[in-house]
């Protein structure tokens, strides 16, 4: 287990739908890792989150073994999913495309918490509210 890192690849992949076609294959293939094993493991770990785009960080070791860490989806994706939006506003200051209740902001903050540099749910909620406003989504008090 004398692991030595030789590669690091960041991808965003729909939950449960990794396959060896581009860009997963083109990003991981040149690293020499078992792409089918990666896809199988990624899909197995994420199938319960169907419909979400998940960031994943793959670390490759010198003997071409690998490991990966799943991150939480971007706040914008979680907000759109929560509100059933196709996209955010092109003019967030003037055109509002929806609104979140405080409970909804908390729900999203709880999902994002592991990846945020926050020590309280309140500060995570502040960050989520900021992301919402930047895409034209109001936050109701």
């Amino acid at each position, binding site marked *: *287990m*004398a*692991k030595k890192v030789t590669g690091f*690849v*960041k*991808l*965003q*992949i*729909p939950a449960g*739908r*990794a*396959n*060896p*076609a*581009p*860009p*997963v*294959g*083109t*990003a*991981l*293939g040149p690293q*020499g*890792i*078992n*792409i*089918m*094993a990666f896809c199988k*493991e990624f899909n197995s770990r994420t199938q319960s989150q169907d419909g979400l*785009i998940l*960031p994943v960080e793959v670390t490759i*070791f*010198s*003997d*071409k*073994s*690998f*490991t*990966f860490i799943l991150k939480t989806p*971007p706040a*914008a*994706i979680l907000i*759109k999913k929560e509100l059933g939006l*196709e*996209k*955010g506003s092109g003019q967030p200051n003037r055109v509002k495309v929806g609104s979140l209740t405080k409970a909804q902001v908390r729900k999203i903050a709880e999902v994002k918490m592991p990846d945020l540099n926050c020590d309280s749910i309140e500060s995570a909620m502040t960050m989520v509210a900021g992301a919402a406003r930047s895409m034209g989504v109001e936050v109701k008090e």
Partner: protein
Amino acid sequence: MTWTSLRIAGSSHRDAVIAVLFAAGAQGVHEDGATLVTHFPDSLDVGAIVGMVQAADPSAQCVTAPTSPIDWSVAWRERMRAYEVGSLTVAPPWLTDGCDASRTVVIDPGMAFGTGDHASTRGALRLLQQRMRPGLAVADLGAGSGVLAIAAAKLGGSPVFAIEADPDAMGNATANVERNAVGDVVHLLEGEAKALLPLVAPVDLIVANIVSSVLLELLATFARALQPSGIAILAGILNDERETILDAVAADGWRVLATDDEEEWWSVAIARP
């Protein structure tokens, strides 16, 4: 199917651009530093997708190019090879034709260290072959893919305890043990070596391909877990850590039996104090 790559640099609205790419049918996005990379089958209008990206982020600089027609579901295998290590061969499943199953350790590369493609694995394997005798009880610490435990079983070791703390490695190790038909001899245990080794002791031989700092921490645990005539094989030691390890084993009364060098990695077999 042929594909076109789309590389996007200079984006100041990455989330918006990524959303456009997925909405247009991307199966994933590679974050290559500051550049976003994806690919679309040629059945889609990539020019129109570039227009959508630039509408979402006017600062985005888009470059398209044909994607090399490589089937990565199998092409990654070309970078793997079989290794002959003493009387054993370590090989991935698709390179075992003509190999003697009793002397071949078949490892499917995956999420566990120990594919055979690393000098520290091979160093441990060479020392293991020198010291192994049929019927010896073996503990493999930091077992990873199970490569050393499987080798010990094929060399006659019984029982063989393969201890690994990383849960991600266990699936690969389990499959490799089954693939090599040594499930009646090799027992996989998930957990920390310090906690589990005393539970399987005493053993005749310990093989540990870990990092030197962990090896140093475990030396006293090794001594307690070995039979009086027991041997420990330590690997995962860089050449410039050799003196530190030698000083530590000498201070504890271990006797050096043999050493091995390959590339920048050094391994050592030591006899119990």
